[in-house]
Each structure stands twice: as C-alpha cells, then as structure tokens.
C-alpha cells in the first residue's frame, strides 16, 4: 500500500517523532541529533529507521521505545529498524542544534569529524559554554556519557562537558 493514504500516515508519524527527545540531551530531538535516519511505509506499517550514536549507547533502547510509543498513536503497527550503516557522525548535527547545545551548557562538537585531531578535543580550543572564555582545559577524554569529554574553564572555574566530534 504505497499511496496517498500511506503517505499521510508517514507524515503523521514524522510529526509525532518531532517530540521524541534524546534522553541524555533532553532539550534535543532525535531528529536534531541525526539519530532518526528515515521513516517509510512497508506493506501495512510504518518503519522508523534509527541509528545509535555509539555501539554501546544505552539510550538506544529507550529511544526505540519512545519512538514506538509516539508513532503507534497514529500507526499501531509501526516498527523500529536499527541501522548501523552509515555510521552516525557528529557531522549530522546542524549549526542550529550546536547553538542549542551550547545554550544548554554543553560545548558542541567543533569542526568536522574528518579531522583526526578533533576526535578527543585535546589540542583544540573548546570555549566555555557559560562565560565564553577561550581559556579552558580538558580534564578527561571521557565524560558522563559515551559522547562527551570533561573540561574545566580556567576563567570561571566551572566544569563543563564537550560533545566529542566523531
């Protein structure tokens, strides 16, 4: 059934998914995070294609459940498919979303993932999201979740997290 009706259902599911947030960054939607890859209709149901940020990201299960819950309001038969390829990258996070991250106290990924030096955030200037100082220091290449590294601001002394560029 690929017709006007299925198209309408897909559009309705997409609208529903606009309210599904990343549980680890609850001010961003899964669409803004680049985890929602596709929504399409197959035979008699909608398929929501999601991709995990990290292989072991525990949020993936929660995101799948939340997406299903939201989608099944309009299509009770909706299903989730997890796609590994192409691998998720911070390049899919828009400038607008990066600004939103910073406004919420998280230093966004800087530049493109193709630059190997940008991987850990070490050796690059990560401005403090709070006071905007350029004098900051990486405390650990790891953080509270797989996607973040820990920094501290040498001017306002606030610890903050930097979203790793992968």
């Amino acid at each position: 059934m690929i017709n006007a009706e299925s198209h309408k259902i897909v559009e309705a599911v997409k609208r529903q998914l606009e309210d599904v947030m990343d549980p680890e960054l609850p001010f961003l939607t899964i669409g803004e995070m680049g985890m929602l890859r596709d929504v399409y209709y197959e035979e008699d149901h909608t398929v929501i294609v999601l991709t995990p940020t990290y292989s072991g990201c525990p949020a993936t299960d929660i995101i799948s459940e939340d997406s299903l819950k939201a989608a099944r309001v309009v299509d009770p038969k909706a299903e989730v498919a997890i796609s590994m390829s192409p691998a998720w990258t911070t390049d899919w996070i828009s400038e607008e979303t990066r600004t939103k991250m910073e406004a919420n106290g998280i230093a966004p990924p800087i530049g493109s993932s193709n630059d190997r030096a940008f991987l850990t955030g070490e050796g690059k200037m990560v401005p403090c999201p709070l006071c905007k100082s350029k004098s900051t220091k990486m405390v650990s290449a790891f953080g509270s979740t797989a996607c973040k590294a820990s920094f501290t601001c040498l001017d306002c002394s606030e610890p903050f997290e930097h979203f790793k560029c992968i």
Partner: protein
Amino acid sequence: MTDSQLKEVLLRLGDDTLILAQRLGEWCGHAPILEEDIALTNISLDLLGRTQNYLKLAGELYKPTKSDDNLAFHRDPEEFTNLLLLEQPNGHFGDTICRQFLFDNFSLLLTVHLASQEVNTDIAAIAAKAIKEIRYHVDHSSKWMLRLGGGTSESHEKIQGSLDKLWQFTDEMFEIDEVTSAAVESGLFPDLTTLKSRWLDNVMSILTEARLSILSNTEMKYGGRNGNHTHHLAEILEVMQVLPRTYPGTTW
C-alpha cells in the same frame, strides 16, 4: 568459509569484547581517580555494544537461533573463545592499562580491515561504527603507557612488570588455525602475519618512547580460541552469569 566457521569468527569477536568489558566493569567505583573510573567504564560500554552486535549475528547462525544474551549467559567456560589475554585479572591500574593497550592496537588494525572488506556487509557495518571508538581507546591506553613508563621509577617498574607478565598472551591474537585460515582465505580477515608485524610496529613505537622493553624469549600461551582457558575465566563467568542462571528469563 562455511557457516560454522563464520559463526566461530563472530563468537571470537564477541567473546573478546564481552570478557574485556566485564573485566573493565570491575573497576566501576574502584579506579584510582574519578576520571579513570569514568574512562574505563565508558570503554567497557563501547565494548559491550560491539559484543551485542557480534553475538546477535553469531546467534542467527545457530539452529535454532540463539539470542546474544543466551550466548553470553548460558555457555560454560570451555565454550568461550576469547583470548587468554583478556581474561587476565585487572591487577593494579598499570596491568589493566597494559592489557588494554596490547588489545586496542590489535583491535584497531583488525577492525579497520573488517570495515573495508566486502565479504560480509553486516560485519563491515559493525566495524565501521566501532573504528572511531577504538581510536579513542588506543589514544587513552597509549597515553597512559607513555605516562606510566616515563613517570616515576616506581611507575616505570610497575608498568614494565605488567608488560613482562602479559607479553606471553600476545601471539594468540595472530594465531593461525582452521577458522582464521578460512577467514583470511575468504578475505574477511587480513593476512595475520602482516597484521602482526603492523601491530608490532605500532606497539613498539609507543613502548620505545615510554622506555619500555619486551622480553625476547617469551614462551607464548595459546588455547583460548579452543576453550582451554586459564582459571580466571570461570571466576569472571561466575559473577557475570549468576543472575540469569539463578533466575532464568528474569527482566528488569
């Protein structure tokens, strides 16, 4: 390569990361500093993610099929195919870092090949996703090798001791047997002799900078791939499997 050989390859990939993930998880709440507590458990989580991906694929090749959880929780020590290196105890922080450093460098080279081969696209997709994570792990363990090797005389002595203790388990990563031969022949695996010399180059460049040396006449240990493990594996499984075995099918 036969289906049963492919299953064996997937089990080995999944078992390696599963056992190392479980070992690293033992550091949760015990690492010498908070940042390392977070680092080691984050790495553990990455490894566990890869485990799930590989064991899911392996499970599909059983008749009837098995879940990743079933493979992790309901096999006995002799059915596990992980490297002996990865079941070795955490010891002190340097022991853990050294074990990680030796494996990370192997894992990166193998995974880069797995991501580029076209024999099995499912494995290629898992590997492509894992590369960036493993680079991060290599970066972490290499920096610690440099710091500990070039640190105080005590840290230098301790990390040299870790290396002396663990070196005997390194050749198993490049062991040639029926399964790896078939994997190499099909193109799924890279040539293991070349892989070993590239691994040695990468590892030695860091060790030399850290002023560390390897024992030249080490008798290498093998057996993990065939289920002949050191007694440490049974200890790991006892902790890891107790809940699902005591309460089968339990969820939370």
